[in-house]
């Protein structure tokens, strides 16, 4: 290239931008491929999968009803371990949800265009994870019919909630998070529902999509307000997603318990939540990508970026583990020191080391490019992260509680079958909802993916002769 003015140096020659959709597909191809998933008959594996997950979900619901009719005593909770798997599962699931909002909100503000391929599925995953999370605080109170006491409404006893309690903040944070996520998700769905409407053959399907899409016409006078709403929702969801897990961490950080009473909790919880959430997005999307042949939309470049985010957040979490340990040593508080030594060398040492290996050591594999582009390794690391994040919460909650201040109060925690099957049941609920979602709604945001194609740029002119970089690499 000839010498050019420094201010107008073009880097395109040296480092061409990689296309977000591979193999130069047209807009019509995107509509056909994505909407076709919903329009075609459900594949056989889908029926097998939903039969399994809904059975698991049904058994989970049975356990929940058994708990409600019998009492919280069917769980393994005791004193001093009054918070055990219930809160562990709650924080686990609510953390999973964070990746969806991060992808839809924070990456939108950062103009990360690759997000368009995964944001719909990740947001749906957020909703289902928050539903699973909401089950646990609901049922752990025992008398679920009294749950409305959490709402700040006048009641006959004239008792009002304590607005200064972190548990009350949680009620507001989680319910706001769920509501805002639903609104954000549905706003993004409206143009795609209009696509489904215009493609629908059957009268019933057409009418349903017509109503659900509100009669969207795709006029720029509509897009103008739509884009502003989308931007503002992204802007307010960004502090929201950071605040939700911070608020969850306040449940612990504001207590005086050694192991909980630390100021590092909010950032550490948020990083962990994003780590666990991205792992779950990969766990769900890697199979979905292969089964529905979405390799050109959800490409290896997308997986690569998500693996880098796993590495980043996993390393932040690792830093937090080490820093907690250091502060316990440096803080000269014997109770705090004991709590952390007990965490790694006490009776639950295996849980802590599992957590450390899964969350800190395994993601380090992602430094290697070849590993980030090998689905078996990516899937393995994301499964490790899923397990590791559950163990992290177990470690923080149960291990900190099981050695009380007085040795006479020390006890071990053993889960019951109800504990175990309620937790497994929430996986059934989560996966059943996700399978229904990919069956009945477009799992990729079609209008957004079309908007990041090269020809969507109003100043785009087709190259005369192969000037555009074409990615044709195909992986099994």
């Amino acid at each position, binding site marked *: 290239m000839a010498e050019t003015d420094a201010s107008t140096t073009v880097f395109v020659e040296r480092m061409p931008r990689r296309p977000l959709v591979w193999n130069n597909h047209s807009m019509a191809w995107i509509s056909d491929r994505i909407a076709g998933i919903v329009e075609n008959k459900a594949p056989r594996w889908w029926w097998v999968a939903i039969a399994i997950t809904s059975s698991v979900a049904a058994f989970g619901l049975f356990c929940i009803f058994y708990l409600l009719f019998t009492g919280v005593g069917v769980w393994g909770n005791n004193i001093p371990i009054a918070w055990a798997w219930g809160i562990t599962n709650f924080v686990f699931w609510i953390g999973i949800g964070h990746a969806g909002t991060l992808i839809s909100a924070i990456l939108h503000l950062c103009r990360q265009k690759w997000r368009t391929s995964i944001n719909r599925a990740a947001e749906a995953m957020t909703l289902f994870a928050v539903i699973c999370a909401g089950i646990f605080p609901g049922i752990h109170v025992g008398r679920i019919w009294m749950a409305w006491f959490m709402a700040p409404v006048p009641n006959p006893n004239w008792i009002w909630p304590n607005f*200064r309690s972190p548990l009350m903040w949680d009620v507001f944070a989680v319910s706001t998070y769920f509501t805002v996520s639903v609104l954000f998700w549905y706003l993004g769905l409206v143009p795609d529902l209009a696509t489904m409407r215009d493609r629908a053959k059957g009268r019933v399907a057409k009418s349903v999509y017509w109503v659900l899409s509100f009669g969207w016409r795709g006029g720029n*006078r509509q897009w103008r307000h739509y884009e502003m709403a989308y931007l503002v929702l992204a802007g307010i969801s960004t502090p929201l997603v950071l605040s939700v897990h911070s608020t969850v961490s306040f449940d612990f950080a504001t207590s005086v318990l050694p192991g909980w009473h630390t100021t590092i909790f909010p950032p550490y919880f948020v990083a962990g939540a994003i780590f666990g959430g991205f792992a779950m997005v990969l766990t769900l999307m890697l199979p979905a990508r292969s089964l529905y042949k979405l390799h050109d939309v959800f490409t290896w470049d997308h997986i690569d970026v998500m693996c880098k985010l796993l590495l980043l957040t996993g390393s932040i979490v690792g830093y937090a583990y080490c820093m907690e340990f250091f502060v316990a040593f440096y803080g000269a508080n014997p109770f705090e020191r004991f709590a952390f030594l007990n965490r790694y060398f006490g009776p639950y040492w295996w849980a802590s080391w599992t957590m450390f290996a899964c969350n800190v050591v395994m993601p380090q594999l992602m430094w290697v490019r070849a590993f980030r582009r090998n689905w078996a390794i990516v899937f393995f690391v994301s499964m490790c992260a899923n397990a590791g994040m559950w163990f992290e919460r177990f470690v923080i909650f149960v291990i900190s509680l099981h050695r009380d201040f007085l040795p006479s109060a020390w006890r071990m925690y053993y889960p019951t079958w109800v504990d175990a099957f309620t937790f497994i049941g929430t996986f059934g609920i989560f996966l059943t909802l996700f399978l229904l979602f990919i069956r009945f709604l477009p799992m990729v945001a079609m209008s957004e993916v079309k908007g990041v194609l090269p020809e969507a740029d109003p100043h785009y002119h087709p190259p005369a002769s192969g000037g555009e970089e074409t990615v044709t690499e195909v992986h099994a």
Partner: protein
Amino acid sequence: MSSVALAKPAFAVIAEFSSATALFEAAEKVRDARFRFWDVHSPFPIHGMNKAMGLGKSPLGYIIFCGGFLGFTTAVLLEFIPSSFLFPLIVHGKPVNFFTVPPFFPIMFELTVLISAFTAFFGVFILNRLPRLHHPLFDHEPFNRVTNDAFFLVIESVDPKFSEIETREFLEKIGGTGVTLLYAND
């Protein structure tokens, strides 16, 4: 049949364009011809189209700000009326006064976000006059493809510069294909 159709008032003239680039360039010409009641329809929002159409920024942001302020005010009243007057609680030995405000912040933040989000969601549909399931554009068969890969430009008959013949010629001149006169459907 045609006599019935002719009895209906004209709604608009619609033209199809081949790409986002063509639509963008056509929009600039329609803007410069000083039409007022017109719109472009595309499968995705086209970057810079507001400027090409001569539209300003959406006022929705200001409306959402009002919604957020309403949410904040609601939270302040919701927290301080019960905590100070109806059911004063002394927690950690701290009364409710100016110096103990920070623990009330999280709920103020959450309600601000919640009402802003509702305002954004309902605001976008109210400003767009949606839901509207019945629109003359839907009678135009090729318009089905607007949510797939087609680009349309519509000039409405309520525009003061609209004329059934000249507007059609104008749209053909700026590169539109399949230029059609649409009739109001009610």
